[in-house]
């Protein structure tokens, strides 16, 4: 059981990285990765929301939508729930944890419509449909791992971008073009992790 969970966690970070392997959440990946501290702040917020969103959407899907044969409403219901949830978290954080609110402040509302969050909530259900042992706990671990994977990608790429700043880049590649090239190279390097988790724990 524990081994299984560790495998899911590692796979979510390395082989199924949402940014570098599934290409979800590219917008914050390119937008907020300019500095290391903002990248970390954003990733912590994303991880937080991913886990809580999965914790709420999974039961709603399984116990409300499936019995009524309303699987097709998945997207709209999930977006509604995620948006409301993020708002609620924001209000609660402002009241009870002002330091955390100040640290995450601007990033929280940005996450409401982050496709990586929606992607996690929907893909864990897809996985659960394919593999009956993939239940609620596994989904939560997967969501947490995906968030950490997002953080790994963000922090790695923030480092790459800080290097890019001091480099002499040809004029036609300055700005976004070189950033996209660098992002693709980082993504290719992550392909090297394919099979690693199965090899380690299988």
């Amino acid at each position, binding site marked *: 059981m524990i081994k299984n969970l560790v495998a899911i966690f590692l796979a979510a970070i390395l082989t199924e990285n949402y940014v570098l392997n599934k290409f979800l959440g590219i917008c914050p990946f390119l937008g907020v990765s300019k500095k290391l501290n903002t990248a970390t702040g954003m990733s912590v917020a994303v991880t937080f929301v991913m886990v809580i969103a999965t914790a709420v959407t999974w039961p709603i899907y399984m116990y409300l*939508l499936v019995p009524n044969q309303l699987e097709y*409403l998945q997207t709209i*219901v999930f977006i*509604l729930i995620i948006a*409301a949830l993020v708002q*609620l978290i924001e*209000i*609660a954080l402002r*009241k009870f944890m002002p330091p955390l609110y100040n640290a995450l402040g601007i990033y929280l509302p940005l996450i409401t419509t982050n496709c990586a969050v929606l992607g996690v909530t929907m893909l864990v259900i897809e996985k659960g449909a394919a593999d009956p042992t993939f239940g609620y706990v596994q989904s939560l671990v997967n969501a947490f791992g995906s968030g950490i994977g997002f953080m790994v990608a963000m922090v790695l790429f923030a480092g790459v971008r800080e290097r890019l700043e*001091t480099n002499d880049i040809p004029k036609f590649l300055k700005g976004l073009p070189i950033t996209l090239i660098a992002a693709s190279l980082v993504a290719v390097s992550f392909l090297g992790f394919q099979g690693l988790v199965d090899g380690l724990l299988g």
Partner: protein
Amino acid sequence: MNQLWIPIVIVAVIGLIAGLGLAIASILMAVPKDEKAEDIEAMLPGANCGACGYSGCSGYAKALAHGEAQPGLCAPGGAEVAKMVSQYLGLADVDVEAKVAVVHCLGSYDNTSDKMEYEGIQTCAAAAQLAGGVSSCRYGCMGLGDCVRSCAYGAIDVCNGVAHVEPSRCKGCSMCVKACPKQLISLVPLKKQAVVRCDNCDKGAMTNKVCKVGCIGCMKCQKVCEAGAVKVEHFHATVDPEKCIGCGKCVEACPRHCLTMMEHLQA
């Protein structure tokens, strides 16, 4: 019919619950806002320069509202903002002396030279790590523009290898003072007075080797000063702005032309 109604009801109910939940949460967990601090923040210039010593304008406004800070610390806002804030808080007016930043170096390429061809990271902070900096004068301006980048008002230029502050644009926020690794920039009161445009504390002969306009500590300025404002210590003249009467005698006496009158700083 049910096929149509059940999804509509479910989504509507989820939306309603979410909306109501948020409404209730926002009432239950409302954070009382500090109106005083918000009013004061609206008066401040919003430059977030940090000259007051607080974390941006909102930090200073908060400290003012709680009575922890005095009005008049805001350099970009100057006397006007200080007056507004002290009126709002019901405090006595504070006199704010306008100050501008002055670069204490005249080491342009005409007057001094570089001791190396520097191709490293193009910041003063990085260059200063390497054998005491690019300039052959170890006290002098390296002209790589850390101060230019720190200035939010575009008041600083690096021209011919030496930084220059345009006094009419300078708000006295002191960001450049902190940015300069050679501590060449200081804030001086904006009034008629003499300023020393050199920071070199080496002996005269050594200064003479590296710079045509460096202060050699010849004491001529100190001798002609009737107000006792000019002092030469460590082979380097300094002017005390409080004592300086702006007569200009030291400027005339200086054989190295590194003393300038404040009003001649405008480029």
